[in-house]
């Protein structure tokens, strides 16, 4: 049986060579199938299986056997590895090794909307038909660099496009040919959210567009697989072919990790996610994805903080990243999130090991570290039997090291790939690192030799003077040059020595005057011991101070996520927004996230009492039109983008969430921009500072979508670049709607008929509108277009829900009333573009007076935190009563969003979304003191004041640490001042 096994393995070995049928014209056939054995080694078969004094037997590029008792055949070359370790070589499955960089499309002076290719998918950025193996060429230089970092195998791919096609598993052995090096030519399918540089096709122009496109491709591929397409689509065919492969998607940040995992869930795919190194900031959510991760290990350098004015521009969040990011692998590991490491994101492979050692110093378990480099990546690719361990039958890819691999002192001698030896540092190299007492011609110097074995460093001192010196060692010959004591002269002392005994170095010297003499250098043992003890101290965990993560992990984040409370507000002026009007000297009890009681002299057990005498309580402010807390706002790649949703790109880390809370805002509709007539679906959120993007979503809110009219959709202010996209006039806008709704109607009819159809997310969304399952908020300015859209809606038998901006709404209030549409407008904006010439601040008052549900919105990160003031302007402009004015930023937008059963007024049973103001809420002198969402205090003025102090202290501490790092000689990066990216309707 055992013999049979051996025979089988031998046959495998032969087939591995695979070239035995090739003709040979430059000599005779000379294959060698000898064995190689490595004996007396500490053999790490896998991260969890270590055998001491073991033998590893390999042949024909594979592991034949291993263990304490391995019988060694006669035709075996034996290498004694006494005291040394053998590890499986590392595996990087997120590489673009050997792949030619695609060529960038030439620029042009008008946008490109259609695909460049024919016979493929309609979108150039979908390229599943690509295969890394095409255009791949073994790159010996890079292979050598990667091998030196300990890697034996990489999975490479074409890092271009959204769906990037298949990758190939390549062994990094320069010996042999690609016939043996290519271990698998279709090993995984790769994806990202970045467009191909080979095409200028506009769509998708945003992250949410890319996410929608990935979903749509999946639906299209399903339809295509059923044979329903009349034409050939090589992309969809390839996609279907690649479906059974592992799907690896580049996310690049914790937010994107979560977003793309969700996309995967929608199309029944569990992606392997290439993360960003910030997963520790949201580890529970990351864990909940159940995904396996590929984690870059590119830790930021300290900032150069020496110029205090520049230093002031660095934010706490960025300072913390320097301190915390090295702990990311440890946090993942401690939370049992499976992950593999990658060289991706590193400038060069040689940065890998120092960073990994840092991660270990920051708490990463060594076994987990090794697994992340070997068994986990192998498992991701389904190649556990072949790579990532030294099990019998695996490829003979292994490292020979001087000691435990993650010990700082350890030298990696050799990296064997497919049974071929690649020497990094000769095993015979004498380790002369240490302190020596160097004597030359009666003079004594202190010589210290340090650094890596392959790259030694020297320091030569005499008395207190340090002399410039350089050391090198080749084949046991050391050469050392140092400058003479007299620094006014440019001359040198040159030593050379054949090293035989590392305790005692002897050799010849050429003195500055040209005379030759001899030297002797004795190792000073005592100093050396002391030094290694010092090093041990440094290694202990207590020396690494990792600042605690907050939620979100930046200024004003919570150390612990806040919880719902039972709170009794006593003696407030309560703006109910209900029939009760404004109640004086009234108590409000908040319990279980709801408004539990409103009345006089209330009491409640276990409630935190807050004296609100002289203060005002209102429902939280609702902003119907906002673009904060989003990582994208416009998908302008097409004139309709109903398939995209802002829910995909909610940015839970946006500081404007906190600033909005400080202005009393408790519900926000994040709208798509106004770059196209049919925009994207909205996200209605509650600004729960510190929660994940998913938890911000107002789950009970109905579905909504943004439409837009006027100058923005016809690209009037885009200059001469954009003159080709339909529509360029208001006339065209009507036709876009008529066309899309006509198509949506036909689509719905086909779908309902039971006949096969292609699932189209864009048309599905429009069908929802026609079925009154999704509400339109439409960006609008002038009366003609407002009337037009109502007419289109009437023709297709649905209603427009809200006109937003609606600055000429006052001209058509009667028609709006008849249609039943609401209005959400600016208090006083105008004169910023031509179509707002007739915008008047009395708009809200007129609309309100005509019985239209009217709200005041912000469309602006700054204004949204002062919507109470904006509501007050309706009192000035048009004389709206204070109660009705207040409803314009609370109850009325709640009605427009169809969430007024939950929020918008102070009523028993409604969500406890409320604000405690120090003054009349619409007074210019009012400040929000506390903002609650469902009974949880998300903003508290007192906590804010404490946070300011804490931020200063922590920044100071981190700054000091960075200055210390610089003084220690660690690399720093220059400060680049960041600018907050703020979105408006027309942000592209």
């Amino acid at each position, binding site marked *: 049986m055992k013999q049979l096994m051996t025979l089988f393995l031998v046959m495998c070995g032969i087939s591995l060579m695979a070239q035995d049928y090739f003709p040979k014209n430059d000599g005779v056939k000379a294959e060698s199938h000898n064995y190689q054995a490595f004996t007396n080694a500490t053999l790490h078969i896998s991260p969890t299986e270590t055998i001491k004094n073991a033998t590893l037997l390999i042949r024909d590029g594979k592991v034949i056997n291993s263990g304490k008792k391995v019988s060694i055949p006669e035709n075996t070359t034996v290498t004694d590895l006494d005291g040394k370790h053998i590890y499986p070589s590392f595996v990087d499955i997120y590489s673009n090794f050997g792949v030619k960089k695609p060529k960038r499309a030439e620029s042009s002076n008008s946008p490109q909307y259609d695909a460049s290719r024919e016979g493929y998918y309609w979108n150039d950025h979908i390229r599943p038909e690509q295969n890394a193996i095409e255009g791949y060429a073994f790159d010996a230089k890079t292979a050598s660099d990667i091998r030196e970092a300990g890697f034996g195998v990489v999975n490479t791919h074409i890092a271009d496009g959204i769906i990037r096609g298949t990758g190939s598993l390549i062994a990094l052995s320069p010996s042999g040919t690609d016939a043996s090096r290519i271990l698998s030519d279709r090993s995984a399918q790769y994806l990202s959210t970045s467009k191909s540089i080979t095409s200028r096709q506009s769509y998708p122009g945003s992250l949410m567009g890319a996410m929608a496109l990935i979903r749509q491709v999946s639906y299209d591929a399903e339809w295509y697989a059923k044979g329903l397409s009349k034409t050939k689509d090589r992309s969809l065919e390839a996609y279907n072919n690649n479906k059974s492969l592992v799907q690896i998607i580049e996310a690049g940040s914790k937010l994107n990790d979560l977003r793309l995992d969700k996309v995967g869930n929608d199309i029944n795919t569990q992606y392997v996610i290439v993360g960003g190194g910030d997963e520790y900031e949201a580890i529970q959510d990351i864990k909940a994805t159940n995904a396996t991760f590929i984690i870059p290990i590119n830790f930021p350098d300290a900032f150069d903080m020496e110029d205090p*004015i520049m230093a002031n521009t660095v934010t*706490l969040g960025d300072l913390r990243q320097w301190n915390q990011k090295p702990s990311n692998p440890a946090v993942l590991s401690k939370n049992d999130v499976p992950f593999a490491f990658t060289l991706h994101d590193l400038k060069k492979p040689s940065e890998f090991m120092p960073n990994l050692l840092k991660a270990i110093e920051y708490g990463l378990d060594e076994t987990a570290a090794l697994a992340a480099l070997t068994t986990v990546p192998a498992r991701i690719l389904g190649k556990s039997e072949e790579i990532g361990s030294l099990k019998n039958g695996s490829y003979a890819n292994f490292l020979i090291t001087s000691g435990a691999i993650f010990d700082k002192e350890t030298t990696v001698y050799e990296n064997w790939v497919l049974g071929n030896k690649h020497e990094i540092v000769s095993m015979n190299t004498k380790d002369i690192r240490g302190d020596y007492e160097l004597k030359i011609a009666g003079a004594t110097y202190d010589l210290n030799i340090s650094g890596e074995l392959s790259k030694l460093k020297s320091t030569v001192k005499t008395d207190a003077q340090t002399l410039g010196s350089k050391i090198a060692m080749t084949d046991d010959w050391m050469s050392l040059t140092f400058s003479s004591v007299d620094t006014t002269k440019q001359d040198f002392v040159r030593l050379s020595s054949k090293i035989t005994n590392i305790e005692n170095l002897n050799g010849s010297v050429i003195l500055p005057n040209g005379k030759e003499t001899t030297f002797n250098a004795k190792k000073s043992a005592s100093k050396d011991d002391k030094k290694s003890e010092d090093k041990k101290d440094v290694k202990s965990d207590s020396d690494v101070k990792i600042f605690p993560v907050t939620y979100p992990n930046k200024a004003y984040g919570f150390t612990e996520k806040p919880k719902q409370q039972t709170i009794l507000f006593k003696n407030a002026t309560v703006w109910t927004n209900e029939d009760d009007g404004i109640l004086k000297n009234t108590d409000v009890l908040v319990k279980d996230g709801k408004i539990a009681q409103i009345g006089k002299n209330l009491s409640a057990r276990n409630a935190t009492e807050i004296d609100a005498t002289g203060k005002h309580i209102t429902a939280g402010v609702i902003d119907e039109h906002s673009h904060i807390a989003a990582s994208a706002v416009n998908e302008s790649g097409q004139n309709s983008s109903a398939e995209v949703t802002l829910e995909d790109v909610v940015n839970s880390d946006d*500081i404007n969430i906190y600033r909005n809370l400080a202005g009393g805002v408790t519900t926000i509709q994040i709208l798509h921009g106004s770059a196209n007539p049919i925009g994207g679906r909205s996200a209605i959120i509650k600004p729960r500072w510190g929660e994940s993007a998913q938890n911000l979503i107002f789950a009970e809110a109905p579905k909504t979508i943004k439409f837009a009219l006027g100058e923005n959709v016809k690209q009037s202010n885009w200059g001469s670049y954009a003159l080709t996209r339909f529509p360029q006039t208001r006339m065209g806008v009507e036709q876009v709607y008529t066309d899309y709704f006509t198509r949506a109607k036909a689509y719905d009819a086909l779908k309902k008929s039971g006949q096969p159809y292609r699932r189209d997310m864009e048309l599905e969304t429009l069908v929802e509108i026609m079925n009154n399952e999704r509400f339109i908020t439409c960006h609008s300015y002038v009366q003609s277009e407002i009337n037009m859209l109502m007419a289109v809606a009437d023709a297709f038998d649905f209603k427009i829900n809200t006109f937003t901006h609606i600055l000429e709404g006052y001209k058509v209030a009667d028609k709006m009333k008849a249609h039943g549409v609401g209005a959400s407008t600016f208090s006083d904006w*105008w004169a*910023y573009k031509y179509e707002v010439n*007739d915008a008047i601040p009395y708009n809200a008052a007129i609309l309100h*007076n005509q019985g239209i549900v009217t709200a005041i919105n912000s469309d602006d990160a700054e204004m949204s935190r002062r919507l109470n*003031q904006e509501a*007050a302007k309706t009192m000035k402009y048009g004389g709206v009563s204070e109660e009705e004015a207040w409803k314009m930023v609370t109850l009325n937008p709640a009605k427009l969003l169809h969430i007024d059963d939950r929020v918008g007024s102070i009523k028993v049973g409604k969500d406890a979304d409320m604000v405690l103001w120090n003054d009349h809420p619409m007074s*210019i002198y009012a400040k929000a003191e506390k903002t609650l969402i469902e009974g949880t205090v998300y903003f508290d003025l007192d906590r804010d004041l404490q946070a300011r102090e804490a931020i200063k202290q922590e920044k100071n501490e981190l700054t000091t640490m960075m200055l210390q790092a610089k003084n220690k000689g660690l690399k720093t990066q220059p400060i680049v001042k960041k600018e907050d990216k703020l979105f408006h309707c027309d942000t592209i």
Partner: protein
Amino acid sequence: MKHINIYILFIALLISTSSFAQQTPGSKQTKAIAIVGATAHIGNGQIIENSVVVFENGKITSVNSGNTNTSGMTVIEAKGKHVYPGFIAANTALGLVEVDAVRATDDQNEVGDMIPHVRSLIAYNTESKVVESMRPNGILMAQVSPKGGRISGTSSIVQLDAWNWEDASIKTDDGIHLNWPSSFSRGRWWLGEPAGLKPNKEYANQINEVTNFITGSKTYLKGDKKPKHLPFEAMQGLYNGSQKLFIHVNDEKGITDAVHFAKENNIDQMVIVGGAEAYKVTTLLKQHNIPVLINAPHSLPANEDQDYDMPFKLAKQLHDAGILIGIQLGNRENFQTRNLPFYAGTCAAYGMEKEDALKLITSNTAKILGIDSFVGTLEAGKDATLFISEGDALDMRTNILTEAFIQGRQISLESHQTELWKRYSEKYKNP
């Protein structure tokens, strides 16, 4: 017959106003006017309850409490109301820009680096619909500033009820505007540099260019001035003290450098415009008595670490440090100028005394612009440029003007906007 005539006149007036939009400037004050019973906000920190404000021939003659003989005067009963000096908006685009996005309506940004000879006043459009929308909010005067280049040109100060720019000017060519070099420059991302801001390597060079220009102009002005050099010629006022240098700068380093620059070049009359980080260099500013026209406080903090209310409370911090401050409009959209009173109100919400906050748009601004001898407060001898509001004019709920006067002339509080309001309100009343 008489009635019919009036009717025709009314119709004619209606047609003319709705077709030309602008309001007809008020006619010269012919009779003394007394505003009786209002709370007078003097603009210098004082309040006079139950006041009598009298003005005649366009000038304020007395501001008293209680009993003043008003016989022979037109009396405006204003009990329960408030009277304020006309608000002054500094550093605006009023009359230079009509519609931000329409290039043809933008006359603020001239070509060239050192163009002090470019004068805003001659481009000031008295017919602007944006200008007339200021007045119902109490803004009756404005500094109209050019914007482009390093030295942008020369500003002037106007009152907002005029037939033409000659009528409008209350101080012609009041100051020269200098855009201080930025300490940061943007990474050239198209060359693969990080896109953020990094220290501007050209900073020192750019300052030198300004210094050279100053030196060049001084030398020129000492000589026979031949051949004529228009830009150098335009600098004269800075050196003889008749003009101020408005240095637009926000960051700590820039402000510090700008102050030293002005001292080294013997420019006595300088004003910091912007000053977002002025709170970091209050000692220096106080030492040299440099006033600051701060940015409109309705703006976001500079970065995510900064206190959420930093822009709101900047005025309080500078005021407490003893620095003379006013509010300017700078980078806001042109139309936002009308929110000036609410910017002052916000400064009061975040720490300032209300009457001190009022100074930010009245007496302080007048001092900073060098027009305090005739406007900025309700004091005898000054222009009767003032208004009556139903309530606190710094609060949007109660900033409701009933009457306004510029140089004693009662002005219309109507605008293109109020006309549309009335027209369409009427439409729904009589469908």
